[in-house]
């Protein structure tokens, strides 16, 4: 059976070159970078090299990169670490309603610790209005965290516009760039932010590694206390093979981004155009233009995401959904709800995220197999029969 992986936002595969770069560190080069002997020296060297590579990808300096264990850890570290470092100045934090849970729930924890959090709404495309950030700023605002792009609907946020405001007010600005770094050009200086999260498994690097970039001079309190790895900012024996892999992935991404963007945008635009043409009562979610090249997201009315996923999986197609049933927490995507999509429609969420291996044939294939699945599920759906009866009644 044909196999099509359209779930690159969940995780990309590992690039074979990245894997190749990692293998020696799963073998002879097993040393601990803190050790003072040849094994340690080699490990330390490779971690330093990876730091240069990651810094290079985002226009940063190597010593500003702190390796972490995931995008989630980077976000927890940023929110809690930056807030705690500045609590003497104030306790007010601003984030958006569509942040990833690792930001949202970190903010909730900060609330328990006595911080005050303002959630900025988004428009129906999922875009934050910089003016809303501006208006939310108070005397005691110490931190703004707005994501660079949303992984579920692909919408890009106006980070530069927001950083102009935070800069003016001298407020630390963190951006969760887990969905963008390695996929579109990201330059910390151009963005004007003070801290930025990224993760390896979003651009053909390994799982188990992320990074937090913190502008030199910005204080941050460690999330993981212990030894003085990572300049005393993140304790614990370094995950050397994964760090080496992240470095390699960063190096490769620097070269691959333009070609990937062109290719993904083509696939995306085909799907954004052709899927609604083939399936009535389906809508594109997220911004029509200002979105990640690799993201095509929809809601398909009257049916539910998980059953679509399962039937697509039987046809060899891997996608994801923001429906309540797929969320394990059994709540419809907070992102779709924040965009004003009804709970009922949000249940039909379907998300395609592209990877290097995807082709036009993959798009053809999913456009061929999806409509009968939708039909079949709609035939089972009491919502659909009500709709049909109502439209008949109406006509």
């Amino acid at each position, binding site marked *: 059976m044909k196999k099509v992986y359209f779930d690159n936002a969940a995780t990309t595969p590992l690039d074979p070159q990245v894997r190749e770069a990692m293998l020696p560190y799963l073998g002879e080069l097993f040393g601990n970078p803190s050790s003072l002997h040849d094994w340690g020296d080699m490990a330390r060297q490779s971690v330093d090299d990876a730091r240069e590579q990651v810094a290079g990808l985002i226009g940063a300096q190597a010593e500003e990169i702190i390796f972490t264990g995931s995008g989630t850890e980077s976000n927890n570290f940023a929110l809690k670490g930056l807030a705690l470092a500045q609590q003497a100045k104030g306790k007010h934090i601003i984030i958006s309603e569509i942040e990833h849970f690792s930001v949202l729930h970190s903010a909730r924890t900060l609330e328990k610790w006595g911080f005050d959090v303002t959630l900025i709404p988004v428009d129906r495309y999922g875009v934050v209005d910089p003016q809303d950030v501006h208006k939310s700023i108070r005397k005691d605002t110490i931190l703004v965290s707005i994501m660079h792009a949303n992984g579920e609907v692909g919408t890009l946020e106006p980070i530069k516009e927001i950083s102009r405001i935070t800069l003016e007010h001298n407020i630390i600005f963190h951006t969760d760039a887990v969905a963008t770094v390695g996929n579109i050009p990201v330059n910390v200086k151009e963005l004007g932010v003070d801290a930025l999260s990224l993760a390896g498994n979003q651009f053909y690097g390994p799982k188990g590694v992320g990074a937090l970039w913190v502008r030199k001079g910005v204080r941050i309190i460690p999330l993981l206390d212990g030894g003085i790895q990572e300049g005393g900012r993140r304790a614990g024996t370094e995950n050397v093979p994964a760090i080496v892999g992240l470095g390699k992935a960063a190096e490769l991404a620097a070269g691959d981004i333009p070609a990937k963007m062109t290719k993904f945008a083509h696939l995306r635009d085909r799907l954004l155009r052709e899927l609604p043409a083939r399936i009535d009562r389906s809508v594109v979610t997220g911004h029509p233009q200002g979105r990640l090249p690799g993201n095509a997201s929809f809601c398909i009315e009257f049916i539910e995401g998980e059953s679509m996923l399962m039937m697509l999986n039987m046809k060899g197609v891997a996608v994801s959904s923001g429906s309540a*049933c797929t969320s394990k927490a059994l709540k419809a995507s907070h992102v779709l709800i924040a965009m004003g999509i009804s709970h009922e429609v949000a249940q039909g969420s379907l998300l395609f995220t592209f990877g290097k291996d995807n082709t036009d044939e993959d798009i053809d294939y999913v456009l061929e197999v999806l409509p009968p699945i939708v039909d079949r599920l709609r035939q089972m759906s009491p919502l659909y029969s009500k709709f049909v009866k109502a439209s008949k009644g109406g006509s």
Partner: protein
Amino acid sequence: MPIYSQKVMDHFTNPRNVGEIENADGIGEEGNPVCGDMMTFYIKVKENRLDDIKFKTFGCGAAIAVSSIVSEMAMGKTLEEAMKITPRTVADELEGLPKNKFHCSNLGAQALHKAIDDYKKKQKKAEGGKQ
């Protein structure tokens, strides 16, 4: 590991008794689309037995499989027997359901019971009308 048992997958892939019954003797609806799962059961009753059952379901794989197996479990049973079908017996019959799916997608028994209640109410009315 798939999150669902083979039995769930079987009923999800080939759900039994999907559809509606025109002039059903009883109709029962349970759940709502906000939570993600909603089921409508239609029954035909003959001599106190479920002579036909059909359902329509909006929801996840588990919800569809639950509806299907409930229709199968209840088919031909007396109304009293059918009322003894519970979420627990349904889950057992499906060889288990994921923990987090147990409550919200396992509404099939309730929807069926509502259809039976609906039938009984109509019966009463009809009898009342006759008297």
